[in-house]
């Protein structure tokens, strides 16, 4: 793979397609090579590469490809005689049914040892039904509570749960406001009615209830909304002091723009996803400055790792890319430990190991360790703020790189 530092995401996509095509053509040669060194290990990657969540899928794939190339360049998987990691990437579109079908196909035809994906919680849930049935590990950075809440044995989530993230989104905001001398009494919540939006809103609501803060607006809206005006009218009438929108990209741009139009100056504290990718800043320009968001991880906490991403793809390492990179590195470390790619051995290694080297250091908490539900117990969400086209970690104070700016 060419390391072109000037590539933008669109070119990368084509480049990736070209790479995939080249890989296809070169397959016989690679096979022979692989035979010599021990067979390549197929890792399934299912992401939304078209449809409403495509941008996030592409970001995620970039993160995974970076780590795969790094491992392969460093001599592959040592426990398997230097076997290379071979990614089998599939498009989940943005439909759960398709995601499940694709998972089925990867397992029966491509002989994958594990699956990574699929960014959107609704997709991950659909895939997990398949992987659980087949007993194959699924490593994910989706965080709807349902993912680890169903007693599945083959799911591994490297980030905190949505309700925890939602609560942190609220608690962090209260603390930042307090630091600026404002006491929050009324807040508004608006969220997309998907698995992700709904669980995270539950967390915000719980946080508000525990703190005795009144939720003056609590509205769900459908994915792919084309007119947010009614929501913003309601927000203006509600008298909230801060708003917590949980949305993907298209809706996040509409919400912030409509707020600015109506001169609503209250702080907006985004719920990750749409609020923490470069496109958000590109779409809003100066209006992005100062917008806060929760994030399951942020690149400025481990620049020694994430700069490798920036160097290769030309933009900062968004959290989904970072967490997917961690997923693949955890899997690779588990394979090294198990010295096998059998699903049962892998599951045991994933459950019983404290992963504290490589990309795991870039994750919040610095360590990845799964409890029996498959949840990483060390990850804690952070608050980030847009400052001059970059995301700066501003909360919690132990890891913050700068003090938050609160404009009420």
């Amino acid at each position, binding site marked *: 793979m060419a390391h072109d530092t000037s590539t933008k995401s*669109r070119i990368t996509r084509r480049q990736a397609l070209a790479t995939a095509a080249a890989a296809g053509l070169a397959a016989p040669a690679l096979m022979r090579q692989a035979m010599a060194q021990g067979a390549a290990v197929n890792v399934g990657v299912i992401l939304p590469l*078209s449809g409403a969540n*495509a941008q996030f899928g592409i970001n995620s794939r970039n993160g995974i490809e970076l780590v795969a190339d790094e491992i392969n360049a460093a001599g592959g998987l040592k426990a398997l005689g230097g076997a290379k990691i071979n990614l089998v990437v599939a498009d989940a579109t943005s439909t759960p049914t398709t995601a499940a079908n694709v998972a089925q196909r990867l397992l029966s035809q491509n002989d994958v040892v594990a699956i990574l994906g699929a960014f959107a919680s609704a997709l991950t849930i659909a895939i997990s039904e398949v992987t659980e049935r087949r007993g194959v590990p699924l490593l994910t950075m989706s965080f709807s509570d349902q993912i680890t809440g169903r007693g599945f044995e083959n799911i591994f989530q490297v980030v905190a749960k949505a309700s925890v993230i939602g609560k942190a989104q609220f608690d962090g905001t209260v603390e930042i406001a307090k630091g600026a001398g404002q006491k929050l009494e009324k807040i508004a919540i608006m969220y997309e009615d998907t698995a992700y939006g709904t669980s995270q809103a539950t967390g915000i609501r719980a946080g508000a209830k525990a703190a005795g803060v009144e939720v003056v607006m609590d509205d769900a809206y459908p994915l792919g909304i084309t*007119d947010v005006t009614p929501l913003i009218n*309601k927000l203006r009438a509600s008298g909230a002091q801060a708003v917590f929108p949980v949305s993907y990209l298209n809706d996040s741009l509409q919400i912030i723009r409509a707020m600015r139009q109506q001169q609503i100056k209250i702080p907006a504290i985004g719920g990750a996803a749409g609020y923490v990718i470069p496109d958000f800043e590109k779409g809003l320009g100066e209006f992005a400055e100062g917008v806060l968001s929760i994030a399951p991880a942020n690149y400025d906490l481990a620049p020694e790792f994430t700069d490798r991403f920036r160097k290769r793809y030309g933009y900062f390492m968004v959290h989904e890319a970072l967490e997917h990179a961690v997923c693949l590195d955890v899997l690779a470390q588990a394979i090294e430990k198990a010295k096998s790619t059998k699903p049962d051995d892998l599951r045991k290694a994933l459950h019983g190991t404290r992963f504290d080297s490589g990309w795991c250091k870039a994750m919040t908490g610095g360590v990845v360790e799964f409890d029996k539900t498959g949840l990483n117990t060390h990850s804690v969400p952070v608050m980030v703020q847009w400052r001059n086209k970059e995301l700066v970690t501003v909360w919690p104070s132990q890891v913050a790189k700068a003090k938050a700016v609160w404009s009420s």
Partner: protein
Amino acid sequence: MAILQALLDGLMIGGVYAVISIGLTLVFGVMGIVNFAQAEFLMLGMFIAYYAWAWLGLDPLLAAPLAFVVVFVLGAFIQRLLIHRVLKAPEVAQIFLTVGLLIVLENLALLMFGSGFRSVSTPYQTSALRLGPLFVSVPYLAAFAMSVACGLALWLFLKSSWFGQAMRATAQDPMAAKLVGIDADRMHMLAFALGVALTAFGGAVILPYLTASPTVGGQFAVLMFTVVVLGGLGSVAGAVVGGLAVGIIQSLSALVFPIQLQNLVLFIVFIAVLSFRPKGLLGAAR
């Protein structure tokens, strides 16, 4: 006051719905074809306006006529090459063709533009006019004004120009139109090109407040069909009434019900209207 604001918002967005739907109804009225790919031309219009902004620095509102022209030419080609062949074919063949066109256009867009969301940034995007306690969003107002201007131009064209009159004649009675020397094939080409170009124009004017992506058509397809059927399939005035009605119904319903039920309320009204007036609000008067 909230009702007034909702009416205003609904009216503005309804005007845009009207313009993007007129194209659909025009194609049906003149050619008797239901164009399932219509919403994809909205997507094309958005992308043309996006690239005009990104490469030429043109405001999407100024790029709208450009989108109109480009898609007009494209539409004429598509009509000549594809639609023309199925005009007399069974309806099933027509449905297959336009649905096929939808899939092809969407996937071509995915290949060419990539699947990300693209958004322009313009100075007026985040501003609003204040009318006492009411807020008038500038991008909505601009889109509405452009839509009204476009609708008026179309009305004048259909009313007064020879082509417009000939087109209406073809819609009313193709045989009689032929007898008085109107070239029906040419009228069909003009109608289809005009229809998709209008939708593309609508796509360009809404770009300042929305984002363009290859799959954006899907979000408007059902809405467009609701608008034209509500107003009366084939009736241009019906599409205008239908568009405004849909915009206002959606906006008002959000006052009372959660925004997720917006379309539920819309379809309840839709079904009620159709059960009393099966041909739509203005169905009888083509």
